[in-house]
Each structure stands twice: as C-alpha cells, then as structure tokens.
C-alpha cells in the first residue's frame, strides 16, 4: 500500500514545493501540509516505535492529541524531542527523525519485547525489580529508562530567543471552530475586547477539516468571511498558532504562541515562542471534541486511524491514507468519513457498525450492522480485518470511531470534575464558574447548529455581564445527526489491543489493576500508566475508564476521571524562562562608582544582585591575597577608599520620626543630637537580631538610616509593616534613597587631609567633625554632600555621600587628592579583613540565630523603653548562660590557617561534631598581625578567653589548636579610631 496525494482540493499550496527529510531520506510536500500529511502523501506510514514493545506505529490522529507519531525535530541546539508530526507545519529544509528505535525504524531490535509481552503487564517493574533494593536506582531504573523511552534532548544551548507577554481582554475565546467563531463574532460586534486564540496554524477549527454548510455557503467559506470580519474589528485580536495550556485562579490563562516554529530558524530579531499570561474578564472554551479509538486487536498498526483524522487528511490536506478503507464505528460520525472519502474517489470497502439499529446515511457504501472488527491483520501495515464472527475483509486502511469526548481540560484545571452523560457516552463539563464557560462540542453540543448557537449565546451573556449589548444572530446551517451506542473493547480480539498507545497499555492491564486493588482511577492510572506521558491520555482515557468500570463492577460515572492539570500540551522550558536566561536570569545592579572601580581594575563579586568591587589587583599581583594585604596595609597606614554605595539608605522624616526609630531599634534614638550618627541594632519580633547600621539625624524631624546591603529591602518592608499595622498613629514618612547616593568610605591616618582637599569652606578637625559627626557639606566647589565620621575598619574614617550622578567624578577627585598620601582603593575583601581584625559583627554573626548579647551588644538593649523584640528577647532560652556567643579565635601555631565553618571542640576531644562547642563564622588573614584569625560563636565563650580548643574542619578532615580570645584582635583601646 502507498498513501498518496489526491489530485485536487485541500488547503495546500500546490504551486510551491517544500523539501524535507525524515530519517535522512528526502521528501517533498506543500505549504499547508503538516509533517504527518506530507509523509502520508509520500506513502510513509511508519513513523515511530512504541514505548514498551517497540511496535511499529503510524499516525492515529490529525492534531494535538497524537500519541504515536512523535519525532525529533531539527538539529543541534534547536533539536526538540517528542514533537507531534500532526502539528508540525511543513517548512522548506525541515529535518525530522523517528525515535525509540535501534538500529532503524524498520528493523528495531527492541521489538523482541513483544515476544515477552505476557510478563510486561502492569506493575511489572514494581514487582520484578524489587530486590536487592539498592539495585533500583543504580541498575534497574537506568536500564529500563534506556529501553523504554521517547526522544532524547539536546545538551547544546538553545540559540533562539523566547519572550513573555501579558494579555488582557473582556472575552477570551479558546478555539476558532464554529462555536468559537460564533462567540467571537457576537462579542466582537458588541464592541467588547475579544481575544480569539487557536492552537492551529490557521483559524477555523473543524471547519477546515469538514464539509459543512453554513448560511448557504460551504462551512470553510463562512469561516473565512467570519475571520475577515473579526480581523477588521479594532477591538478583536486574533492569535493562531497559540495554545491555551492552563486555566488559573482569577481567570488568568497561560498560553504559548509559536511565533516562529513554522520556519527553519527565526529572524535574529524575533522570538521562537512567546509565553502569555492572559487576564480575561470572561472566557468561552470552544475547544471542540476529540474522537476516541476503539480497542481491538492491532488497533495500533500503521494504517489504523481515527475516522475523523482520515477525513481531515483527505479534506484539508488532500491526502488519502490508503486505497481501500474499512470504517469501524459505534456512532454516526464514522459515516461522514466513509462518504467524504468516497466523494474524493477513495474506495471504501465497507462500514462495520457495532449498532444493530444504526440508521445513518451511507451514500451507497455497504454497511454491516451489529458487527465488530476484532483484529486488524498486519505485518508493519494493515492487510485486512477480521470481524468477531471471523469474517475476513481485505483492506489497507481502517478508520475507527469510538465516539467523541469533549475537550474539557481547561474547565477542570481549577478543580471541577466533568460529569458523565449516558446519551452522548461522554464526560461533559460540570456547571463551572460564570467566568469560564464551555460552548459547542466542548460542551457536548454535537450538532453544528447547536455549536453556532451556544457560541453566540454564551458570548452574549458573558459580555452582557460586562455591560456590552450583544445581539445573537446565528446563520442557518446543515446538521449531521449524531447517535452513539457504547462499545469500548472488542473482547473477541486475538492480537494485542491498546487502550493507551503512548504507554502501550492493553485492556488486560486495567482488570489486573482492579484485581490487585487499584480500582480507583487515580491509582489505576499510576499502576498501569494509562493516561501518562506527553499526550496525557487524550485519546485513551475514557476507554480506560470504561474498561476499569466494568472490571470493578461500577458505572463509568462512579469511576470518574483522573485530575486534569495544566499543561494541555507540553510546553518547552525555554518558554517559561523567556528572556530571563544567562546574565538576565536575575537583574544586575551596578553602583554609581562602578565605572571608577572598573577603571582601577577592580575584580567584581556578585553580592545579591549588586556587583561590588572585591579587590583591585595591580598588574604585578596574582591571586586575591596579595592585593587584599596591600589594600589593608594602605588603609591602616595611609588612606584607603572603598565603595559602600550598596548599603541600604532610607530617608525617615516627620514629627514622629525619632519615636519611630526609637521603637524599631533596641537602643535609644530619641535623644540623638542633630548632626550626629549612631550605630543602631534592630531585633526581630522574636528577639533575634535582624539588622544593624548607622543612622544619622540631619534635622529634628529628619533621619538618614543605613541598613546592611543584604537587608535593605527587608528592613523597608519591616518598617512599612510596623508603621501600618502596629503604630499607624505615628506621623512618620520614609522612602528608600539607596540609589540617590554614591557612598564611599575614606579610612586611614591620612583620611582627614585627603578629604580636606575636596571639602569647601569647612576645616575638618575634632571640633568641627568629631567622631560620629554627620553633616551636610559642600565639596568640589558646590556639590552638596553628606559627610559622616564613622568607621567599620577601626581607623580614623569617614563615609562621604554624594548624589549618584557625581559618584565617579568625586571618587576620581579623591584619588587625585589622596595621591600624595598614597591613597589606595580597597574592596569588600579588605573591608572584611579589617572588620574581623576589629571584631565587628557582620553577616556571618548576624545569621538569624544570634541575640544582641550573643554578639556582645547586650548592653545596647535599652531598659528605658519598649521596642520590637524586647519581650521575646527575655525568653529563658535566649538569655541562657551557655549560649554560643561571639569570641575571637587565633591559631596556637601562627602558621596554621583556620577555616570558616570549622567547629570548636574541647582540647582533648576526638575530632567529631559530637561535643561541638560552636563554630567559626568568619576568618581572615590579618596583614596587621601576621596570621590567620577569626570570629566564632562559642558556648559560654566570654568566660573562656584564653582556653585552647581543638578546631575541627570536617570537610577537609583536619584539625588544629587555637586559642579563644577577645573578638577585638586589634587596637582594643580604639586609639586609631580617634587618632
């Protein structure tokens, strides 16, 4: 048998030829073809191998539900596995390969699995590969996954772009068949904003596939006119090639637009796909219905197809699926296939109708009523059928129709369960929410007139709710009767029959599941795998439910469906990532001094979203330690300059600003003098330290607060909560000004003379600018700046804030001013070394487990006022004597390098964590003292200064001895600070 292209008709452009390859072999087709239709037209029916038994498989469906014809599409980074040949639009240069076969599609060694089919029943893996337990993960599972599988993914980066976008509308219409077009027209004419979305390459839905008559013209022509009218309306947006894959709370829908999947490669300026979040005030689901297969022997052989698919291939793609067709049906729609094929000149041998009382129009084609096909006889393709009474009929193609299932998926994503309908033998949508309703075949309206009417009426109601006046004006049309009698499984079958094609689930698996106790459909799904994998049982689920119901002695309604979840069809991860890949994965935040630091060769480090200069290597230096040592020495001996712009900065103003801060900080702020800065400590509600920073009073009702870099946003949120929820009576205003100011620390014995050279009008000395002074000044002949005499390094130091647009300019001016003193830029590494030398706490110690007292700051907790965290800080556990508190740590052998994260053990304890006394939170090589030193949290630590402990590094499995000491390793008297 060879499939072939019909001489005329179809929605294909015969004037243009497109070349493509399948498994390396060259073929051609036309614009308008799918890969599946072009392959069938070229006589290729075998398109893949099945999951478990490696059976030869061809196309079953003609659209999104296709379970079998899955191929690997494209090459290299663009390779995409498991794409459905039935929805791949043909383009010139298309390359596809079959999957799950070795060495070739025609001769697949894995097919030997079929011979052992009797052991590969449901639950086989669970039962067989249980012992020894450890073998599962390492041996059994990898082997099984290799043997049973789909396509393989690429390891190369995807070269294409992906986008995200938001959509809004009054009415979202999902599906552009008769009901969808009718809905869109009705709503569009009312002036409502309408979004009409369809997964197909062109709009029209079933009207592209069927011979209908609407308003006295062909259904296709009516659809074209409707689409043209919709396109002319400014309030209507048409989106073909877009799949609505999920329905979410708030009537939000997820959709995937395949912007450039139908071309070889997108233009460099365009995305491949666009991921949409659509907020719809109302939505109509007009997704149509899906035809079901019938379960009989060999119902998976290439050449056996859904009747509607065969009709679509003939009508839309001008492709005959075979030369001699047998139609097997339990409902009237099989007759449409027979008639359409006959009209196209394709020989239809006979219609086998399982119903004794069938009365559909057969156009002179012989009908055998009350009979069933038990087996399709075949090698790799069909050669005939055998009926349940053993009659044999020769044919090369079987069209089957087991009835129709409304595509209710999106209606059920928010939890609604569909309801069984005996008359239609189908699950119909339950009465969902008013915001999302079904119309047409998706709602079980199987007649064309019903679909057109429902679409119009539901749309009119929906936009009517929103205040639009819509008129229901539906054209007359020709209806095809639809009657059905249930037939799920032809039990007289001899050969292997399939309920779920993609997972090779047979009708015997379901009764087995019921016998073994898995008669709940959710359990049966997982036990048999029916309804799993990429198609999620779009074709087979209802058959599976019916067969399970019979085995379990229940009704189909009682068994019910499994849960419908997004995604309706698979969505590529790239679409979810959108443009946020590579360095756009998270936004990068640059400080106003970035250019200055870059000019000086800074090495940057990511700190949250910020890029901070970590050190400034000279060309002669390698590694990080040499520059850091040089930078620390410069700041301690001469003058250093460091970018501290990343600190959170919050402007706090208002008559109650002082009171507000007084309640936020555990130490007092009410009495802070104007022109002064103070170190502040904030606790969480539970008494644990939250953040620290320096806050200055610029005016009686104006404070400038700083936070740590990491907590800037958190503290702002905390302040908003405290003000809005706890103390709304306070008249206080606050806003983040983090980005307004470029801030630089100028530290070292020569800090003052350096600054003096750029400051206007003020003589800097201990009287005009004592320790903790905070004042607005003018620099460089007119730039307004804020100068704070504060120090993190322990040196005589300042922090200078200037408006950000002047940042680089001022930093360069300071470099010039300090040149004679040997000014040196230093990064966050040197900053950190100096803070460890001075025992100043930072992130390692403010780690969400420590109290103020743990940090040695217990005396800051005011006893004269209330503040956030006061009550809870007094809890027994938080004031226990044996808490781990901050101590200094230094090696006994000064050549030893202690490591952060190491645990402190008693001197004679064995190296293990059992008797851990605490751990090291920060270490640094101190150029000032000439050895590695650190800070640690140690139980009862303040009483243990001088004790020798064992420092155990479990990761490197080494230990050494160290001495617990005061955290302030250097300049305990703070002489340098005040020098």
């Amino acid at each position, binding site marked *: 048998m060879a499939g072939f292209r019909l001489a005329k008709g179809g929605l294909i452009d015969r004037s243009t030829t497109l070349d493509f390859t399948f498994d390396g072999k060259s073929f051609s087709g036309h614009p308008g073809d799918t890969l599946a239709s072009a392959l069938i037209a070229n006589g290729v029916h075998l398109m893949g191998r099945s999951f478990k038994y490696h059976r030869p498989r061809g196309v079953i469906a003609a659209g999104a539900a296709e379970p079998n014809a899955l191929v690997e599409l494209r090459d290299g980074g663009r390779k995409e596995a498991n794409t459905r040949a039935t929805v791949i639009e043909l383009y010139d240069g298309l390359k596809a390969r079959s999957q799950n076969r070795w060495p070739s599609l025609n001769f697949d060694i894995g097919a030997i699995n079929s011979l052992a089919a009797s052991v590969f029943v449901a639950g086989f893996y669970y039962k067989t590969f249980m012992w020894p337990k450890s073998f599962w993960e390492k041996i059994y599972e990898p082997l099984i996954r290799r043997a049973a599988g789909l396509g393989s993914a690429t390891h190369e980066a995807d070269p294409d772009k992906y986008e995200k976008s938001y959509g809004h509308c009054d009415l979202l219409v999902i599906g552009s068949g008769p009901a969808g077009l009718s809905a869109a027209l009705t709503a569009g004419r009312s002036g409502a904003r309408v979004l009409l979305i369809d997964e197909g390459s062109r709009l029209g839905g079933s009207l592209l596939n069927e011979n209908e008559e609407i308003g006295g013209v062909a259904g296709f022509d009516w659809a074209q006119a409707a689409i043209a009218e919709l396109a002319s309306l400014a309030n209507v947006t048409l989106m073909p090639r877009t799949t609505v894959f999920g329905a979410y709370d708030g009537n939000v829908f997820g959709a995937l637009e395949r912007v450039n999947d139908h071309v070889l490669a997108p233009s460099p300026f365009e995305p491949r796909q666009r991921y949409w979040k659509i907020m719809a005030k109302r939505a109509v689901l007009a997704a149509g219905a899906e035809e079901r297969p019938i379960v009989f022997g060999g119902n998976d052989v290439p050449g056996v197809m859904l009747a509607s698919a065969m009709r679509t291939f003939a009508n839309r793609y001008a492709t005959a699926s075979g030369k001699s067709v047998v139609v097997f049906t339990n409902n009237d729609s099989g007759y449409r296939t027979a008639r359409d094929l006959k009209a196209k000149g394709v020989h239809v041998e006979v219609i086998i109708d399982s119903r004794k009382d069938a009365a559909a129009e057969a156009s002179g084609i012989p009908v055998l009523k009350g009979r069933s096909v038990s087996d399709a006889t075949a090698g790799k393709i069909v050669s005939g059928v055998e009926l349940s009474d053993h009659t044999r009929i020769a044919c090369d193609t079987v069209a089957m129709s087991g009835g129709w299932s409304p595509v209710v998926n999106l209606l059920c994503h928010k939890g609604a369960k569909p309801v069984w309908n005996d008359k239609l033998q189908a699950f119909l949508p339950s009465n969902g929410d008013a915001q999302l309703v079904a119309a047409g075949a998706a709602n079980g309206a199987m007649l064309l007139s019903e679909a057109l009417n429902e679409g119009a009426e539901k749309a009119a109601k929906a936009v009517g709710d929103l205040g639009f006046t819509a008129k229901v004006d539906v054209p007359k049309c020709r209806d095809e009767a639809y009657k059905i009698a249930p037939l799920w499984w032809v039990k007289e079958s001899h050969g292997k029959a399939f309920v779920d094609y993609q997972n090779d689930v047979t009708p015997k698996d379901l009764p087995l599941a019921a016998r073994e106790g898995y008669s709940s459909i959710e359990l049966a799904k997982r036990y048999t795998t029916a309804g799993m994998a990429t198609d999620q049982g779009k074709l087979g689920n209802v058959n599976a439910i019916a067969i399970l119901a019979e085995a379990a002695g229940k009704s189909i309604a009682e068994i019910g469906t499994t849960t419908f979840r997004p995604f309706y069809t698979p969505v590529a991860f790239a679409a979810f990532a959108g443009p946020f890949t590579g360095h756009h994965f998270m936004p*990068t935040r640059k400080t106003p001094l970035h250019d200055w630091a870059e000019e000086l060769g800074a090495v940057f480090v990511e700190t949250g979203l910020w890029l901070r200069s970590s050190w400034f290597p000279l060309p002669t230096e390698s590694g990080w330690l040499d520059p850091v040592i040089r930078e620390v020495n410069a700041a301690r001996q001469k003058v250093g300059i460091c970018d501290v712009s990343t600190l959170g900065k919050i*402007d706090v*103003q*208002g008559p109650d600003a002082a009171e507000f801060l007084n309640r936020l900080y555990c130490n007092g702020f009410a009495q802070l003098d104007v022109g002064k800065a103070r170190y502040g400590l904030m606790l969480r509600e539970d008494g644990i330290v939250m953040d620290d920073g320096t806050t200055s009073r610029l005016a009686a009702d104006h404070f400038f607060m700083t936070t740590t870099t990491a907590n800037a946003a958190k503290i702002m949120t905390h302040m908003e909560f405290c003000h809005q929820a706890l103390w709304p009576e306070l008249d206080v205003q606050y806003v983040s*000004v983090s*980005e307004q100011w470029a801030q630089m620390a100028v530290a070292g014995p020569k800090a003052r003379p350096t600054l003096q050279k750029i400051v206007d009008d003020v003589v800097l000395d201990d009287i005009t600018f004592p320790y903790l002074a905070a004042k607005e000044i003018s620099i460089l002949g007119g730039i307004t700046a804020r100068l704070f005499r504060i120090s993190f390094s322990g040196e005589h130091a300042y922090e200078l804030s200037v408006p950000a647009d*002047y940042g680089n300019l001022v930093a360069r001016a300071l470099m010039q001013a300090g040149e004679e003193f040997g000014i040196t830029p230093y990064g966050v590494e040197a900053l950190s070394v100096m803070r460890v030398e001075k025992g100043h706490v930072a992130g390692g110690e403010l780690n969400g487990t420590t109290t103020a007292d743990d940090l040695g700051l217990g005396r800051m907790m005011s006893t004269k006022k209330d503040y956030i965290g006061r009550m809870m800080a007094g809890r027994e556990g938080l004031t226990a004597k044996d808490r781990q508190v901050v101590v200094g740590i230094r090696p006994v052998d000064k050549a030893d390098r202690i490591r952060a994260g190491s645990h402190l053990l008693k001197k004679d304890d064995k190296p293990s964590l059992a008797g851990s006394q605490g751990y090291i939170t920060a270490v640094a090589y101190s150029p000032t003292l000439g050895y590695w030193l650190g800070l640690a949290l140690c139980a009862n630590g303040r009483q243990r200064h001088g004790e020798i402990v064992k420092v155990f590094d479990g990761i490197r499995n080494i230990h050494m001895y160290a001495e617990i000491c005061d955290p302030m390793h250097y300049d305990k008297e703070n002489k340098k600070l005040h020098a």
Partner: protein
Amino acid sequence: MPDTAIAIKRVSALADIAVQGRFGADKGAPGVTFSVRHPASIVTVIARKDKSEALSKAVETAYRFPLPGVGESAGKNGLAFHWCGADQYFAIAEGKAEAELYRELKTRFEGLASCSDQSHGRVIIRVVGPKARALLSKGTPIDLHASAFGPGKSAMTQMAHVGVHLIQTGEDAFELSVFRGFSENFWEWLTEQAEEYGYQVL
C-alpha cells in the same frame, strides 16, 4: 578648600549605554523610539499624617493644579506630580539646578509633606511609538489598553524583575523610571524586546 578644578556635570547612568542610532528589524519607520530623560529632577513627596488635603491645596496655590488622584498624574509648566502610592507622589521637572526642586518643595510644603530628593536615584526612559504598548506588555501585567490606562495615568509596577514607575504621557508615549543601579540591565532587556519592531535611540 578644594585645590582640584573639576568640571561639575551630572553623568547619567546610561551615558555610555543608550547609544544613538537605529537598531533591530528594519520594517520601515521604527516601532518605538527611546530616549533618556536626563538630567531630571525627581522628588518623592509624602503627605504628612492627615495633611493630604492641605498639601493638595498648597500644590494648587503654588502651581495652579491639584494633586492627582490615585493612579494619576497632574502637571503644568514643566512640573508634574505623579501618584506612586498612598499619599505619595513623584514630583518631576526638568531644567532645574542641582537639588533646586527638592529645596523648593521642602520649603513650600514645610509641615505638610516630607520630601526626599531622588533625582540621581532613578533613571527615566521615554518610550514613544506605535509599538510602545505592545513592548511594555512584555513586561508589565498592567492593562495598557485605552479603556484601562491612558495619558495622565501613573502606576507602580514591575518589569523584568525590576520595580518601575510607569506613566503615560501621550497616545503612544510612556515613561519608565527605574532605580539607577538597575538601569543598564533594564535598558538591555527593554531594547532587546523592541528588536522585532525596530527601534531608534534618540
């Protein structure tokens, strides 16, 4: 006294980034044009407790327009107030000296509002063109359709993970204001999204 003579000039965070020219697809006229509004004066004005009405009157007396309502902008003669939160506004002007607007508003609204200078802390990108709305919809969940948004509207939103103050200034004209530190990254994202339409940087 400073002994270093340096020309004092504000330098935009996008000075070397927003390079003039025509970029992206060539489909005739550019779909959008971008420009950086710099140097601008931006001041956050927050009404003090129970002083919203008094502040509005003070604004009207001084500038001949009332404070805008929720989600709106109001302005005249090169100065505009944009709603950006409960009792909170961005006052934006051009052609002012350093901190001039801040001092002016702080003085005028003494006791009625707290003012904070943000002129250097935010970068304003102007987006104009027939594709401006489609472009912005790639970032903001706000409905920008004429029936829901429009000239004179002001909103706080998020685009590409970055907080954005978004205002519409004309039929096809918008302004996006972001924190300075994010501006380079945001510019890259924004212009890349405009490539399919073709864009021009002024």
